């Protein structure tokens, strides 16, 4: 298995307006794509397209099984962090008993030093803590492709460093990642390519709309 993700001439229209033009991405094992662009350039939309949450208007996306962590963190407010992760673990895997599940959740949380969040309710977490709890999903079940939308937002410096080294280790071990972020430079990630999404002007939008 050499490729992780291929997006071929993908475009997406919202209300008959193209969001980011046409994009092609090819990601091999060990590679990493850094997605940048101004606010509103369509980074989140593109990541959702790559994850398969959205369907492209034109073009095709094919990828192996991935972890997608978007703006909405996927945590239920009334459940504890452990219960939230347990929900995912049970839906993703078969035949994990209670003891094993607890062990794996602890292991996943400790990767970003979030073990202390385990029995806190997700609704009571700070924005950064909630992000860390959501990011623990990456380590719950190993998957080669990570799609991360602004993973560093709200994190403190220590957590940013931890996450960055986890991403580096993941890519060095044959995994790959697409990361939308303002905070990163190419120097932060080895073998990474940058994809800058252009802003499509409102004038072009209007022409589209009138067609």
């Amino acid at each position: 298995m050499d490729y992780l993700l291929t997006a071929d001439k993908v475009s997406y229209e919202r209300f008959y307006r193209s969001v980011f033009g046409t994009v092609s991405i090819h990601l091999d094992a060990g590679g990493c794509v850094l997605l940048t662009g101004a606010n509103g350039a369509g980074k989140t939309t593109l990541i959702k397209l790559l994850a398969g949450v959205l369907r492209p208007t034109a073009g095709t996306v094919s990828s192996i099984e991935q972890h997608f962590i978007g703006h909405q963190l996927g945590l239920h407010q009334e459940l504890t962090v452990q219960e939230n992760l347990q929900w995912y673990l049970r839906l993703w895997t078969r035949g994990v008993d209670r003891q094993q599940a607890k062990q794996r959740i602890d292991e996943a949380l400790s990767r970003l030093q979030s073990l202390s969040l385990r029995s806190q309710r997700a609704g009571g977490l700070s924005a950064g803590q909630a992000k860390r709890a959501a990011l623990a999903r990456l380590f719950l079940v190993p998957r080669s492709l990570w799609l991360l939308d602004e993973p560093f937002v709200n994190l403190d410096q220590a957590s940013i460093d931890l996450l960055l080294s986890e991403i580096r280790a993941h890519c060095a071990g044959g995994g790959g990642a697409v990361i939308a972020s303002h905070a990163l430079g190419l120097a932060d990630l080895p073998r990474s390519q940058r994809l800058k999404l252009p802003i499509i002007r409102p004038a072009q939008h209007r022409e589209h709309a009138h067609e």
Partner: protein
Amino acid sequence: MNNLLIIAGHDLRLAFRRRNEWFQPLWFLLLVVALFPLGIGPQPALLAQIAAGVIWIAALLANMLSLESLFREDANNGRLEQWLLMDGSLPALAAGRTTAHWLITGLPVILISPLLAAWMQLPQAAMGTLVLSLLLGTPTLSLLGSLGAALTLGSRQGGMLLALLIAPLSVPVLVFATSAVSDAASGFDPETQLLLLGVILLFAITLVPFAIAAALRIHLQE
């Protein structure tokens, strides 16, 4: 199937934690049915005549009470997106949630229906038919309701729209069920209506989860 059970179990546990989620529909049902004899006065014959209709309409409304929030929470916190990404099991997940909804709002109604029937002076002979009609009819209502909840997920005030959308769809269930109970009360065999309720239920079980999944997919495309 496994995913269905996981979601249903999870939802049940969550519902028991917030007591009013399962208590509210039941309380509503009890209150509505209890007020009828008081409002109409001591006329056992009249009460017996309308008993089936009253109990069924109250059950229908109680079923609608908790529908609006069925998928909203998970749509807001992002878990719905994650459902979509779990390989091809969206109908199973949707069915799991519907199952939990029925266990929380439908099953308690069935369990207290003999009490309600006694309240409304329903003849003993029709008691079994009432329970059976609820057993066959309320799962269909939960399925239709879930579909309505999924379809109105995008609108800000989905509640009214939801009621408007699923009330007409629930009419066949209501008609066959009440007709079965009143037939049984007057000594006829309600088999035909009960079979029809069963057919509607089978039809709904096989098709509606896929429709819910499609509606959720459309919502996530927005």
